[in-house]
């Protein structure tokens, strides 16, 4: 997969030099994908350190393909949580991707096989790139595909590198890989902490999870913290005016 010529933009076929703006979009997409690939290395390493084999780790990157859900899934299993809690948390975290595809689709207008592939690529980064290059609509589509395909390739490559690397390490505690899981999740959370409301939700959710940890099965306190988002989302907007 070259990644530089996304299948949806056949009219910009071989031999046609992309206009400068496309080259800029492409460069940005590659830099985003490289950063995500580095993230995937740590995901692969942590997943294997928590007991998944290389195939299972790689399957999650290929089929689930949404970083926060993958990290949550292996994190909860690694912490001794049940499979049901791990699956539910991954699904709750992945729900936002449905919103992304809902807002992307009027612009992408994909049918058939491209719809099935495009849906898999509807994640944080592709949505951000597609919205950042909203006009003209061809650029928006280009940004979506070029970001999505590069990211998919490097995300899976990074996963493989990290997973194979971790198979030689052994006990996660030795190299502080357990602390790496928390740091990776925090790095995902960090850019979202843009105002007081987000900080309030963060502290409340963390508090709920910690208070419930001694009384509920591992994994369940995290699910319980979802209630914080429910309550905050249903409160009248004016309560959050900064």
């Amino acid at each position, binding site marked *: 997969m070259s990644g530089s010529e996304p299948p949806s933009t056949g009219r910009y076929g071989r031999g046609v030099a992309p206009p400068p703006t496309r080259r800029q979009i492409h460069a940005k997409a590659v830099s985003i994908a490289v950063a995500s690939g*580095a*993230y995937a290395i*740590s995901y692969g390493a942590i997943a294997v350190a928590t007991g998944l084999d290389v195939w299972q780790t790689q*399957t999650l990157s290929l*089929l*689930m*393909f*949404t970083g*926060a859900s993958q*990290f*949550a*899934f292996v*994190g909860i299993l690694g*912490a001794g949580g049940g*499979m049901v809690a*791990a*699956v539910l948390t*991954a699904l*709750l975290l*992945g*729900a*936002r*991707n*449905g919103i992304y*595809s*809902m*807002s992307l689709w009027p612009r992408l207008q994909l049918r058939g096989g491209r719809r*099935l592939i495009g*849906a898999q690529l*509807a994640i944080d980064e592709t949505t951000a790139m597609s919205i950042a290059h909203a006009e003209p609509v061809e650029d928006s589509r280009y940004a979506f595909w070029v970001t999505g395909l590069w990211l998919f390739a490097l995300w899976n490559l990074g996963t493989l590198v990290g997973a194979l690397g971790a198979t030689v390490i052994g006990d996660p505690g*030795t190299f*502080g*890989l*357990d*602390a*790496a899981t*928390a*740091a990776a*999740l*925090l*790095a*995902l*959370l960090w850019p979202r902490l843009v105002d007081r409301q987000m900080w309030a*939700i*963060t*502290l*409340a*959710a*963390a508090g709920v*999870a910690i208070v419930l*940890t*001694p009384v509920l099965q*591992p994994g369940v*306190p*995290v699910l319980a*913290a*979802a209630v914080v988002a*429910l309550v905050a*989302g*249903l409160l009248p907007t004016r309560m959050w005016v900064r």
Partner: protein
Amino acid sequence: MWIGILVASLGCYAEKLLGTVLPASVLENERIRRTLGLMPVALLAALVAVQTFGSGMSLALDARAAGLAAAIIALILRAPFLVVVIVAAVTAGGLRALGWAT
């Protein structure tokens, strides 16, 4: 293990696909949109807390907390993702190697 992996993976894909068939009018409900948008913040925050201080069904203050503190400093200094993760791992692993923390 495989069943859980496939259910979670296909479920996450179904969520993405569902967004392509639902009418955009669902998004016009401000509260639904906001609640779904806040969900990752709450879940990630809870995960960070549990991954740092949880130990099965009990709480523990160990090298992981120092690792998280190091990660916060790295994030404030705008370090790239991989650096944040490595700083946390090295801090926690180093403290254990020195015998200063469990």
